[in-house]
């Protein structure tokens, strides 16, 4: 069990070093455990260095930087055993416009291999999708789908995005 955890940990770590650089367009990050402790018990330490800044523990980063680092790490874990589709539920909430653009670029790259279902309130994220489904609740407590397909219909895109937010 110890060996299996160490193997998985090693793969997550390697993935993380890559996904972090993809999401942050630079900088570096690492995942470590204090070597003298038992790998099944030791705390997992996450350090990250966004471009131009100093290497720090994840807790010293800003809200948005931490969220994007966590997203990179969750993707690193997902990539150990990638399923054919991936669902993201509002993970982009703390990101500013520049980070949304980076986030979207990475999702678009991954989406060539995996299907993505992305729940979001963010207009930048919405514009990256090939399909948009709107859910409404005109009658309180009762959901209704108001579909807007925008694949190959970018004219339609801007108005419908406004209608849903």
């Amino acid at each position, binding site marked *: 069990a110890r060996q*299996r*955890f160490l193997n*998985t940990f090693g793969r*997550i770590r390697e993935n993380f070093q890559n996904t972090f650089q993809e999401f942050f367009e630079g900088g570096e990050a690492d995942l470590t455990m204090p070597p003298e402790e038992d790998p099944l018990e030791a*705390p*997992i330490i*996450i350090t990250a260095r966004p471009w131009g800044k100093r290497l720090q523990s*994840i*807790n010293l980063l800003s809200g948005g930087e*931490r*969220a994007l680092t*966590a*997203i990179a*790490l*969750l*993707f690193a*874990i*997902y990539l*150990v*055993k*990638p*399923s*054919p*589709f991936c*669902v993201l*539920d*509002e*993970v982009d*909430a703390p990101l500013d416009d520049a980070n949304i653009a980076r986030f979207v670029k990475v999702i*678009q790259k991954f*989406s060539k291999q995996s*299907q*993505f*279902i*992305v*729940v*979001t309130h963010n207009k930048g994220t*919405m514009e*990256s*999708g*090939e*399909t*948009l*489904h*709107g*859910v*409404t*609740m005109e*009658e*309180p*407590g*009762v*959901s*209704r*789908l108001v*579909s807007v397909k925008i*694949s190959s219909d970018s004219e339609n895109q801007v108005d419908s*995005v406004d209608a*849903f*937010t």
Partner: protein
Amino acid sequence: MYLTRLQALGFKSFAQKLDMPLQKGITCVVGPNGCGKSNVVDALRWALGEQRPRSLRSGSMGDVIFSGTRSRKPLGMAEVSLTLDNSQKILPTEFSEVTITRRLFRSGESDYLLNKIPCRLKDIQNLLMDTGLGTQSSYVIEQGMVDEIISDNAEERRRCFEEAA
């Protein structure tokens, strides 16, 4: 392999039938707070065999059945059907299209069907076993998980890693 259709009736806020077509690439689900977007994610997980009510934001499994509003009575059953394209034969079955159906009644009884043929939960779990879609829903990344992995709580952070191992 990818998802092609999600249908739901009587599941959480879907008192009216939900029929959502899904495509390859990126599909965005949008709408106001509380309209049912995360309920769509819950429906997907539930159809794929999620057994832990906590992962569906519920106290007990019966909570997923539409419990009524000020103007509608509760329903007696929740049903979700998820259709997958299997033309690449990634799932161990000769069908090139597979529809998983799950029902739960107020009595606590459950039905499971594969392409309309009654089966057991175990058959669905076996079918999905090698795709990374098993009982762990590591294919869902949500805000709560972002907080857990950043969290100072070493236990919570470790759990995200152990589920991948």
